[in-house]
């Protein structure tokens, strides 16, 4: 599979995402925020970092990039799209995922290893992760508290759009219903706050992230 990894001014983890995707068996290229031509690309990753310095609102300015218009079309056509941390924020701002991310309850930036429990969502990203599977992934963010107004939250839950929850007792930021990641209704777009691209090398102590990155290739059309 050929992956496009978006790059905005201020993106930080784009090369880490490329590295992870390559370890999972794909080829990658960076997609500059001004590009709109995604031909030849089988999947999109919107990486972590501080696009536009998190100015105005996390992910807000990046959500208007020309590349994001192309990503919206790509997603509408069913292509797999993954948003990690800032990428999750951008996808929410762009309306491709339900909800919003707010400042951590403790207001501080946190970086630590933690456990996620896979939810009931059906998604090409989760083809190797059955519901209930636990994975060890680093959490690192300052604006990761998942929020959706009551009706939207009910819909996310009842439509099986919860991709991951923080393991019991490990919610680091006050996210509603311990939600760490969600999908869109069709399941091809998935966003999560923790960083699977930092759990792909044995020397970090966990390679669970690879199971997420290998997902779409496992169901490739």
């Amino acid at each position, binding site marked *: 599979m050929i992956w496009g990894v978006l790059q905005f001014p201020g993106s930080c983890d784009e090369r880490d995402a490329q590295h992870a995707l390559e370890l999972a068996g794909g080829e990658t290229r960076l997609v500059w925020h001004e590009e709109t031509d995604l031909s030849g690309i089988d999947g999109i990753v919107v990486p972590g970092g501080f696009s536009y310095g998190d100015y105005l609102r996390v992910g807000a300015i990046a959500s208007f990039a020309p590349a994001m218009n192309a990503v919206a079309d790509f997603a509408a056509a069913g292509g797999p799209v993954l948003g990690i941390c800032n990428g999750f924020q951008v996808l929410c701002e762009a309306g491709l995922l339900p909800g919003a991310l707010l400042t951590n309850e403790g207001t501080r930036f946190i970086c630590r290893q933690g456990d996620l429990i896979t939810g009931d969502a059906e998604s090409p990203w989760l083809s190797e992760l059955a519901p209930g599977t636990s994975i060890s992934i680093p959490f690192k963010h300052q604006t990761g508290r998942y929020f959706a107004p009551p009706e939207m939250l009910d819909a996310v839950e009842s439509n099986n759009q919860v991709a991951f929850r923080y393991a019991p007792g490990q919610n680091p930021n006050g996210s509603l219903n311990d939600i760490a990641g969600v999908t869109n209704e069709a399941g091809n777009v998935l966003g999560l706050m923790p960083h699977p691209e930092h759990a792909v*090398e044995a020397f970090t102590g966990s390679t669970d992230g690879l199971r997420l990155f290998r997902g779409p290739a496992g169901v490739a059309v």
Partner: protein
Amino acid sequence: MAKHRELGLTDDEFELIKQKMDREPNAVELAMFSLLWSEHCAYKHSRKLLKNLPTEGPRVVMGPGENAGAVDIGNGWSIAFKVESHNHPSAVEPFQGAATGVGGILRDVIALGARPIAILDSLRFGELDTERTRYLVDGVVRGIGHYGNSMGIPTVGGEIYFEPPYEQNCLVNAMCVGIARTDEMVRAAAAGTGNMVVLFGSKTGRDGIGGASVLASAELEEGDASKRPTVQIGDPFEESKVLECCQELLGNDLLVSLQDLGAAGLTSSAGEMAAAGGTGIDIDVGLVPLREADMEPFEIMVSESQERMLAVVTPEMVDDVLAICTKWQTDSAVIGEVTDTGDFRILRNGELEGEIAVDALVDGCPLYDLDPVEPSEWIYGNNVTLDENAGPSEIALSLLGASSIASKQWAYDQYDSIVGSRTVHRAGAADAAVLDIPESDRAIAISIDGNGRRVAGAPFQGTIEATLECAANLACVGAEPLGVTNCLNFGNPEKPTVAWQLSQSVLGLTEACEALGLPVVGGNVSLYNETPSGPIYPTPVIGMVGELPDPFKSGGQPWEDSNWVALVGPFNPSLAGSELEKSRGQLGQGLPDVDIAPVKAAIELVRDAVRSGKIRTARDVSDGGITTLLSEMALDSGVGCDVSLAPVIALHDCSEEDALFGEAPGGFILAGDRKAIEELGGKGVQIELLGRVEGNEVKVAAGESSVEILVAEAKAAFESLPHRIEA
């Protein structure tokens, strides 16, 4: 007061300036002299001393005098690194002071053409019992996190200490490590008459006018709120764009030379580039992109607005350079030209505003000799914080909970220590940070270690100890040191006691580096860290980078149930200068002499043992002595230990308390299979089996005394710091 005195120049210095210029300097010229002849820029009181440091070695690619030092890491790649202080600004505005301190050291590494891959910080504050100290600690840690995290550069290590002499003068020393292709690194020297000078990055505003340099040349007085307007504000998003811009410019070979703008802004960057190249330089302030339209020429020349770089570019390449800056959404402009006049000329829209001979400005500052006098007694005072009836177990818990010793995870959790996918050992996880360098098929290790209290007791020995500790930390992850950077934080060098501390410390650093065969490739000096109540502890902070062949054999593992525990090295413990002595209020002058050779042998033995993969648990004994280290190791794994220090007492004829809580260089605790440990014997390094890993208690016997604490109790003490900071 005469203008020159207001700007920090002495009458003699002013006379010398008039002599060199053959006239009185005008306002712009005087402002420029006052900055470049300040202690911070000219190293007036330290330059003569620093000439003694060893700076050469087979792996050195860039030495002192360039933007940062660099060592060859193999396969065509080099590792660049440097440490710098931002003490005074952090005491005035901790968040921005620390943030811009990080930004500044990043730019030094970026200016070399390297991509930063790690940050470490050495921080020192007063005790946590004041609101102000808690405010400083909180602000500094948030500031470091803010800048490093936003740039996507991991903060992988550091240290935090709390001692009364730093209460009014906190220390914030930031170290950056970067990677570059050896033949693509760029020097700072301007070259080529007729070449253009390009400024890019943030617009220039009034940040820090009269800022870092001036603050660093004068002691802090009461009521420093009025200095707040001169503090610089950092924008890490801008710097991340500047970094990518620099990498692209250098990757396309578009620059003759590159320099970052730091203290004294355009004046020092342009001046130093010209001095290094032996050229003259013309700068037209009318061409500088400004944030505020009505800035005076002198303001533009001394502004310390952050995130700016200066480049020398051949005329044919200028358009390409400006185009790349535009792509990265960063302001840029041609603001001057390299000349052959030997003069630094300042123009405004073509009109001459000032003219100074480059060598007078950059190298003409008088260098001063120090007048060292050894103090007859301990000048720093003492506080009793330990109950005089405390038995060994209570002492053990008290030391674990001491602010300087307790877990710093509260701070490390606020730093992204994993971005970049190189981090093998995260901040706080092992004695040194380890980063994978697949480009060169190996890993590097980094440690930053300073000492104030012990150096105050004996500057020569204390500085040797700090250097040895840094090398010992690297050994615990299997790394061999390649080079040293250092930041020397001292009080007012014009005072005889501080002069003595500084001279002795540099002599100690020289001795240790020569004995270890390590070159000093760069560093920083921060003087005048002093208030009316006295100087800080003399605090040399040592940063070291080393290499190891295999990141999978880099120690850092917790010990395991039934492992054997051994003490390795010449470790001859004493309570002199120790954390226990501090808590008893008994600190004084003097430390035992240090015999470097056996410590060096132990360091090499431990390094090889870890590299072989046979020993996966190795830690060096430092603050709080053996008992404290054993307790920390028990907490790391959840399993306690049962050991006896009888061999230590017998070998060194020391007291029971010395054995339990004494400190000294050259002590390592290793844990593993008995066979693996015994195989290390017979190589001339002292190895003593102390006992086994087992149970839920830390039991340390020393003659009639013994420590017996539950691992759970140790945990509560060791994890008590956050409560004190967020009180």
